C-alpha cells in the first residue's frame, strides 16, 4: 500500500511528461492526487490506533541488507501523510489556470514531490528517510526556480544554501549512528540508547537540519523569499507540508533517539522559540507584502510547534502535532487566498487592495475564517493545537508559556490588520472593484480547507486518536531523562487531608 502510494505519483509524473499536453496533464494529475487521497483514507480506516507500533510495514532488502526499502507508519506518520494527500489535489486545482507555461513539467514536479513527501513520512530506514528528506526539496527548488516570481533565482539559491548546511551535518550524524547501533532501522534506532555525551553532538547535527526546515529563528530568512517567489500552489505545499518535515524530524529522531540531549538542550529550543514568536510577529506587523506577512506568521506558528514538542509532555507534543496539521491547512488556505486576488490584480502589495467585502463577499468570508483559524479562535483547528501546546509548555516552564502566549496577542494584531486592509475599507480603486468573486474552481479549493479547519476545531478526536499511543510511548521514553516540570506544592496539613479524602 505505502509503496503503491509512493510509486503511483512517480508513474503519473512520467505519464504527464510523456503526454506533454497541458489539458490532459492536469486531468491526470488531479485524478492521481484524488486516488492518493482515497488511498490515504483507506490507510486511516485500516489504522489501528490502539498501538504505538508501526503498521502497513513493507521491507525489501537493498545493497546486501544495509539499506532497505523499509516502509511503515505510526499515528504520527499517518496524520502527516493524510495532511499531504489532502492538500495535494487542492494544490493541483490552485494552479489550474494560473500556471500556463511548461504545465506538464510543473505537474510532474508536484507529483514527484507528493511521492517524496509520503516517502519521508513512511520511511522506516534512516538512509531511505534521508534520501526522501533531501530529495523532496529538489522539486520545490524547481517549482520556485522555474515558475517563480522576479527574484526566484535569489530565493531558490538562499533556500539551497541553508538546506545544504543542515543536511551535510545530518548525514554525518546518521552515519555515526548507523555505525554505533549497527542498524539503519528507525524503530531499532528509536529504542537504542546512545551514550549521553554522543547524544549532544548528534542532537545538534540533526537540529541544524530540522531547524532550517522548520524554520526556526535565526535560520528562517529563506522562507519569506521562497514564499514570495513561489507560485501559489508552491507556497501552499511549502507551508502546508514541507515545513512539517522539520517538526516530524524532531518527533521521529531528536526526541526518541536522544532523550537526554533533548532535556539537556531544551533551553536552546525554548530560547529560539521565544525569540521567534516575538520577533517574527513584530516583523510580520511591518510587512507590506501579503505573502511575506503570512510567511513570517508561519515562522511564529512553527515556534509553537518547537516549543510544544520540547515541553516533553503529552499535551505539548500532541498540541504541536495539531498545530502542524492546522497550520498545514490554514497557511495553505491563506496562501491560496492571496493567490486568488493575486491572479486578479497581479500584486501582493497589501495597500493596493481594500474593501473587498463589497465585491467579493464570499471570498471575504473564507478569508475571515482562515484568518480566525490562524489566530487560534476556538472552534477552529488552530485553537486546539495552540491551546494544548501552550498548556504543555506551561507545565514545563511558565516563562516559556507566558512569552509564547504573547504570540496570541501579536498574531491577532498582524492578521486582523492584514484582513482589515484587504477586506475592509472603501472600495475606491477601480481595478479592485472590477475583481469578480470566487469561481467554481476556487470554491473547490476553499470548501475542503474550510471544512477541515472547522472539523478539527470542533471535533479533533479522529485526528488525536492515532497520536495517543505513539506520543504516550515517546513521553514514557523521555521520562527516563527526567524532563523538568513545574511542581505544585501543598502545605502538609492540606495535602494530608486531601489524601484522606481522595473522593474530593
Amino acid at each position, binding site marked *: 500500500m505505502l509503496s503503491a502510494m509512493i510509486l503511483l505519483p512517480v508513474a503519473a509524473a512520467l505519464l504527464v511528461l510523456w503526454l506533454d499536453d497541458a489539458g490532459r496533464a492536469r486531468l491526470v494529475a488531479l485524478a492521481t492526487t484524488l486516488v492518493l487521497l482515497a488511498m490515504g483514507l483507506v490507510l486511516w480506516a485500516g489504522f489501528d490506533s490502539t498501538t504505538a507500533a508501526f503498521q502497513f510495514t513493507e521491507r525489501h532488502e537493498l545493497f546486501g541488507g544495509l539499506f532497505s526499502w523499509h516502509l511503515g507508519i505510526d499515528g504520527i506518520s499517518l496524520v502527516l501523510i493524510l495532511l499531504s494527500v489532502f492538500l495535494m489535489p487542492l494544490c493541483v486545482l490552485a494552479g489550474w489556470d494560473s500556471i500556463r507555461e511548461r504545465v506538464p513539467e510543473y505537474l510532474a514536479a508536484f507529483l514527484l514531490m507528493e511521492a517524496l513527501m509520503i516517502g519521508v513520512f513512511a520511511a522506516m530506514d534512516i538512509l531511505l528517510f534521508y534520501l526522501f528528506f533531501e530529495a523532496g526539496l529538489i522539486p520545490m527548488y524547481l517549482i520556485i526556480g522555474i515558475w517563480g516570481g522576479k527574484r526566484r533565482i535569489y530565493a531558490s539559491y538562499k533556500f539551497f544554501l*541553508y538546506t545544504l548546511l543542515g543536511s551535510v551535518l545530518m548525514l554525518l550524524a546518521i552515519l555515526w549512528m548507523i*555505525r554505533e547501533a549497527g542498524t539503519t532501522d528507525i524503530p531499532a534506532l528509536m529504542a537504542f540508547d546512545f551514550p549521553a555525551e554522543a547524544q549532544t553532538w548528534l542532537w545538534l547535527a540533526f537540529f541544524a537540519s530540522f531547524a532550517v526546515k522548520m524554520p526556526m529563528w535565526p535560520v528562517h530568512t529563506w522562507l519569506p523569499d521562497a514564499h514570495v517567489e513561489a507560485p501559489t500552489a508552491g507556497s501552499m505545499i511549502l507551508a502546508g507540508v514541507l515545513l512539517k518535515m522539520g517538526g516530524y524530524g524532531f518527533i521521529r529522531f531528536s526526541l526518541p533517539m536522544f532523550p537526554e540531549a533533548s532535556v539537556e538542550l531544551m533551553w536552546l529550543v525554548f530560547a529560539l522559540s521565544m525569540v521567534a514568536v516575538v520577533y517574527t510577529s513584530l516583523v510580520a506587523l511591518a510587512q507590506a507584502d501579503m505573502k511575506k506577512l503570512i510567511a513570517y506568521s508561519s515562522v511564529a506558528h512553527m515556534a509553537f510547534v518547537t516549543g510544544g514538542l520540547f515541553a516533553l509532555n503529552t499535551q505539548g507534543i500532541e498540541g504541536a502535532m495539531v498545530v502542524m496539521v492546522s497550520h498545514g491547512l490554514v497557511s495553505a488556505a491563506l496562501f491560496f487566498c492571496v493567490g486568488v486576488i493575486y491572479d486578479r490584480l497581479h500584486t501582493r502589495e497589501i495597500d493596493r487592495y481594500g474593501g473587498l467585502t463589497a465585491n467579493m463577499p464570499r471570498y471575504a468570508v473564507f478569508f475571515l475564517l482562515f484568518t480566525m483559524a490562524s489566530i487560534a479562535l476556538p472552534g477552529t483547528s488552530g485553537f486546539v493545537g495552540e491551546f494544548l501546546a501552550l498548556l504543555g509548555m506551561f507545565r514545563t516552564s511558565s516563562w516559556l508559556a507566558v512569552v509564547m502566549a504573547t504570540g496570541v496577542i501579536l498574531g491577532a494584531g498582524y492578521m486582523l490588520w492584514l484582513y482589515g486592509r484587504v477586506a475592509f475599507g472603501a472600495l475606491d480603486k477601480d481595478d479592485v472593484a472590477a475583481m469578480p468573486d470566487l469561481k467554481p474552481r476556487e470554491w473547490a479549493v476553499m470548501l475542503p480547507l474550510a471544512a477541515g479547519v472547522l472539523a478539527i476545531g470542533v471535533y479533533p478526536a479522529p485526528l488525536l486518536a492515532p497520536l495517543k499511543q505513539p506520543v504516550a510511548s515517546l513521553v514514557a521514553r523521555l521520562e527516563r531523562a527526567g524532563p523538568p516540570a513545574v511542581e505544585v506544592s501543598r502545605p502538609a496539613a492540606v495535602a494530608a487531608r486531601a489524601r484522606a*479524602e481522595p473522593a474530593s
Partner: protein
Amino acid sequence: MIGILVFLPLLGFLVAGIGNRAIGNLAARLVTTAALFVSAALAWAIFLAQLGGEGAYTVTLFEWFTSGGLSVAWALHVDMLVAVMLVVITSVSALVHLYSWGYMAEDPSQPRFFAYLSLFTFAMLMLVTADSLVQLFFGWEGVGLASYLLIGFWYQKPSAWNAAIKAFIVNRVGDFGFMLGMFALFLVFGTLDIGAILGGVADRKGATFAFLGSEVDALTTIAILLFIGAMGKSAQLGLHTWLPDAMEGPTPVSALIHAATMVTAGVFLVCRMSPLFEAAPPARDLVVWVGAATALFAATVATTQHDIKRVIAYSTCSQLGFMFFAAGVGAYGAAMFHLFTHAFFKALLFLGAGSVIHAMHHEQDMRHYGALWRKIPMTFAAMVVGTVAITGFFYTAGYYSKDGVLFAAFVRGTEPARVAFAVGLFASFLTSFYSWRLMFLTFFGAARWDAHHHHPHESPPSMLVPLALLAAGALFAGVVFHHGFIGEEGFWRGALVHDPDFYHRLHEVPALVHHAPTIAMALGFLIALRQYVLKPGAAADFVRTFPTLHRFLYRKWYFDELYDALLVRPAKRIGGLFWKGGDLGLIDRFGPDGLSGLVGEGAAAARRFQSGYLYVYAMVMLVGLAAATTWLVTRG
C-alpha cells in the same frame, strides 16, 4: 430544551448567513428573530423551573478533545446563575432583533447583520452554559468575534474597522491572562471542568507553584489571571479603551453586546468561579480596587463627552465597575443583581438613544440636539424611565441593585470595601449628573439642529415595542427580584457563594448610609438641572474656568494617547527594525548573502553559482549516500 435554546440562534445564523441575499431581507429577519423569541421563551421556562427548585444539571453533548490527563467535552450546564444569564441574553437579544427591523430597515446588508446578531447570541449562550472553562473560552472568543464583526459592520468606514480591530486586540490582552489562568488551573487541579475545580478549591488552599521565577500562591495567582481576562471583556480600567470606540457599530449592537450581555461576561466569570475568588482574598481585593477605579474613572469621563453613545458607553464601563467591586467584596448575588437590572435599563437607554439617532438621521452629537421631547415623546418617555432606573430613583430596578452594591461594600467593611463604598457613592452622584445631562441636552433647551435639514420623527412600532418592554423591566425587575438575588437562601442554591445573613445586614446600615445614594442621586440631578436647563451657559463657564480638568476628562485621561505612544507605535517601529536590521541587515548579510560573496564577486557569482546548484546539491547527496554505503559495506 437547553439544547434547543442554545442551538436555535446558531441555526438562525446559518440560515441568514449562508442564505444571505438568496433568501432576502425579510426571510433573514423572520428566521433569526423567530428563533430568538423561541429561545427567549425557553429561557424563561428554564428560569421559572430553576425558581421552582429544579436544581443544577448538565447535558453533555460530545467530547471536544482529550490529551493526556486533560479531557474537554461540549456540554450545557444549567443552574440558577446560568438561568439568570439565559434570561438576560435571550430576552435582550430577541428585543434587539425586533428593534433592528426598524433601525436597520434601510441598510443594504440586513441578512448579514441579523446573522451576526444570532451568531453573537449563540456564542454568548455557549459561554454561560459552559461546564468547562475551555468551552467558556470558546464562547468568550466567539462573542469577541461577533463583536469584531458587528463593530466593523459598516466596514467602509476606516474608523469602524479600526475600532473593530482595537476591540479584538485589547480583548486578546485579557485573553492572554485568561489562557494562562486556565493553564495554571490545569496544573493545580488537573482538570478544567468548572464543577470539579470549584469542588477542589478547599483542598488546595495554600498550595504554591513556581511562576515566572517566584513561588506564588496558586489560588490567588489563578484568580488574578482569570480576572485579567474578565477585565478585558468587561472593559475595566486599563483594558477599557476598546469599549467607547466600539460605539462605531450600529446602535442595536451597542445595546445587546456592549451594554447588556457580552461586557458582563467578566462579571459572570467571577461569579461563576466565586468559590475560587473566595479562597483568594488578595485577588478579591484587586477586583475591588479595579472595579472602584473603573466606576470612578468612567463616570468622570462620561460627564464631558458630546457623543450620546459614548456617554452611555462610559456609563456602562462605570456600572461594570460597580458590579466588579460588589463581587470583590464577596456580594456575588448583588453583582449579579446589578448585572440583571443593568441589562434592562442600559439596553433601554441604548435603544432609546438609537431611536433618537434614528430620528435625527444618524446625528450622534448632543450639541446638535435639543428640545426633542415634543418631537419624539415615546422615545423621551422610555429614556426617562431608563434614566430614573440607572440613577436609582425609588423602587426602580437601579434603586434596589445599586443600593445593594453600595451597602454590601459598606457592610463588608474591609479597607478596599470602604474605599469602594465612598468611590461608588461619588460615582453614583456623577452617574445621576451625566445621565440627566444627557437627557437635558437631548430633549430640552433650545433646538440646536437645523429645522430645514432635520425632521425628527417618532420611530416605528418595531422599535417602540422593545423600548416599552425594556422599560417595564427597568421599572419592575428590582422590586420583583430583589428578595431572590440579594436575600433568601433558596434562590441561588449553591450556584454562587451566597450568605443570606450578610444580606440581612444590608437592611441594618446606619440611616445616613441608607440615604446617601438617594442624596447623591438628587444632587446630581439638581446640578445637571442648573447647568443645562436653568442656567444655560453655565456648563461652558465651567469649562472656561477649569480648562485643564475638562480637557483631561474629555480626552479620557489620555489612555489612548498613552497606549499609542508606548505600545502601538513602538511595536510597528521595532517590527520594521527587526526586519530591516535583523533579518536583512544581520542574518542575511552575514548568512546566505555573505556566503555568496565569499564564493565569488557578489551577485554575479551568485547567478553563475545558482545555475549549477541543483546538480551540486544532488551530487552532494548522492556522493554522501554512496560514501555511506561503501563505508558500511567495507565495515560489514
